[in-house]
């Protein structure tokens, strides 16, 4: 955990190295098809622990918890419906253990619910509010240093999530969207609208993760920089997956390629830099080395 309040470091402009992918590394470590990451938080905690520890070794200043889908609505459709609290607590403990003895902050990860809000889907605004409030409460109680809404696509869902979270937690809050239609989310939200909306709603950091290619994500980053003065979070994915001759999934963007983009991202104004789907500890190590020499 960070020695002095994290929010001061954020406001002072410290550059943070984030972590890499959790899901794709769980697969590399044998997570079978059809299993949620979160299942192994409970059943095989040594695997997530190893992945977190590898990122810690590679130079991450912030590690995200393996709780992307660990919200009460999502888990209600799984055998883990009654274990939402347990999963969130355990996932935080695993990151704490990986961060032990290091100056690393723990970020509670909250992914979107996966169902749409009325009139486009079955859920009401309050369903989102209460679900995110519940998960944020568990993560906060369990001792995270900040909370991250990641891979969001809907302004409305993000708004309910932020309000729900703020009703239970004062921790620094990152709001990060995935622009998988290039420079729009699948719901049509633009980087500028996302940045303005969540700046006005009181987020501490605005961000981009996952999304499409590195070029599109870099373009989104510029658009966000023009729309807010808040610190920017940037975690693009490492390209689209392919299966190699060994039968395992591979991603095409190399650690060197990611690292070569880092000076550009810093120049645009990214303050938190990591990598999403397909990245390994080698990607994070390459980012860390480049940031330290920048």
């Amino acid at each position, binding site marked *: 955990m960070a020695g002095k309040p994290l929010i001061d470091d954020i406001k002072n402009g410290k550059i943070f190295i984030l972590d890499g992918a959790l899901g794709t590394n769980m697969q590399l470590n044998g997570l079978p098809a*059809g299993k949620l990451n979160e299942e192994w938080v409970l059943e095989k905690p040594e695997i997530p622990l190893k992945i977190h520890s590898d990122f810690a070794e590679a130079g991450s200043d912030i590690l995200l918890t393996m709780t992307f889908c660990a919200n009460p609505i999502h888990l209600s459709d799984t055998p883990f419906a009654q274990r939402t609290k347990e999963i969130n607590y355990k996932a935080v403990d695993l990151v704490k253990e990986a961060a032990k003895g290091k100056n690393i902050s723990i970020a509670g990860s909250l992914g979107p619910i996966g169902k749409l809000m009325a009139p*486009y889907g079955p859920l009401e605004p309050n369903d989102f509010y209460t679900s995110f409030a519940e998960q944020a409460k568990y993560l906060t109680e369990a001792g995270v240093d900040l909370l991250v809404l990641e891979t969001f696509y809907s302004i409305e869902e993000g708004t309910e999530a932020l309000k729900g979270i703020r009703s239970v937690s004062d921790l620094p809050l990152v709001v990060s969207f995935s622009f998988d*239609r290039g420079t729009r989310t699948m719901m049509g939200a633009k980087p500028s609208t996302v940045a303005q909306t969540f700046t006005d709603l009181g987020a501490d950091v605005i961000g981009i993760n996952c999304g499409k290619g590195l070029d599109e994500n870099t373009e989104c980053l510029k658009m966000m920089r023009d729309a807010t003065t808040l610190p920017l979070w940037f975690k693009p994915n490492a390209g689209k997956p392919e299966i190699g001759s060994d039968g395992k999934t591979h991603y095409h963007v190399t650690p060197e390629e990611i690292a070569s983009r880092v000076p550009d991202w810093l120049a645009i104004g990214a303050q938190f830099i990591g990598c999403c789907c397909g990245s390994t500890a080698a990607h994070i190590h390459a980012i860390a080395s480049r940031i330290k020499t920048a």
Partner: protein
Amino acid sequence: MADLLNEIKEAVIDGLQKVVPGKVQAALDAGIDPETILNEAMIKGMSEVGQLFEDGEFFVPEMLVAARAMASGMEILKPRLIQADVKSAGKVIIGTVQGDLHDIGKNLVGMMLEGAAFEVVDLGADVSPEKFVEAVKENGAQIVALSALLTTTMPSMKATIEALETAGLRDKVKVMVGGAPLSDQYAKEIHADGYSPDANRAVALAKSLIA
């Protein structure tokens, strides 16, 4: 006649759920052939919606309201199509694969396929390979459409295709795959018959697979 068909088409594109049924009824009352209404108004409208999505003009919300507007018109039209013995474009079994509860993309593809006159059997989300196999046996579909949003659930697609092979059904159906983490390359590697990057191209793909 052309005016009325055009009005239906525009109302579908604009997602006017309350307007479409009345216009479809008016077209039927005017003696327009149900199949013409389907092809020249409804399907044409949804096809334009799909193109607008592909072009980045429309996003998920616009597609959803258009699909609903089409569905509301189909309630009026369907009995007449059955009466006239108009065949569907083909039967598709669709589902999000095992371990994955995300159904937004799958629902969109299902709606767009229905919008192109396919008969869609929706198995929902978190569908096991066995359930897909059962559904193929029961429904005799020409196409199985698999969806996955998470990088961790993509391997369930491979498992589903293998289950179809084991059950001796692989030659009887075409398998198409889609979802945010997917690629054409990945689809080839797991021996799917096709990959679509979005709901609009899924329609074109489905048509080409059974052409």
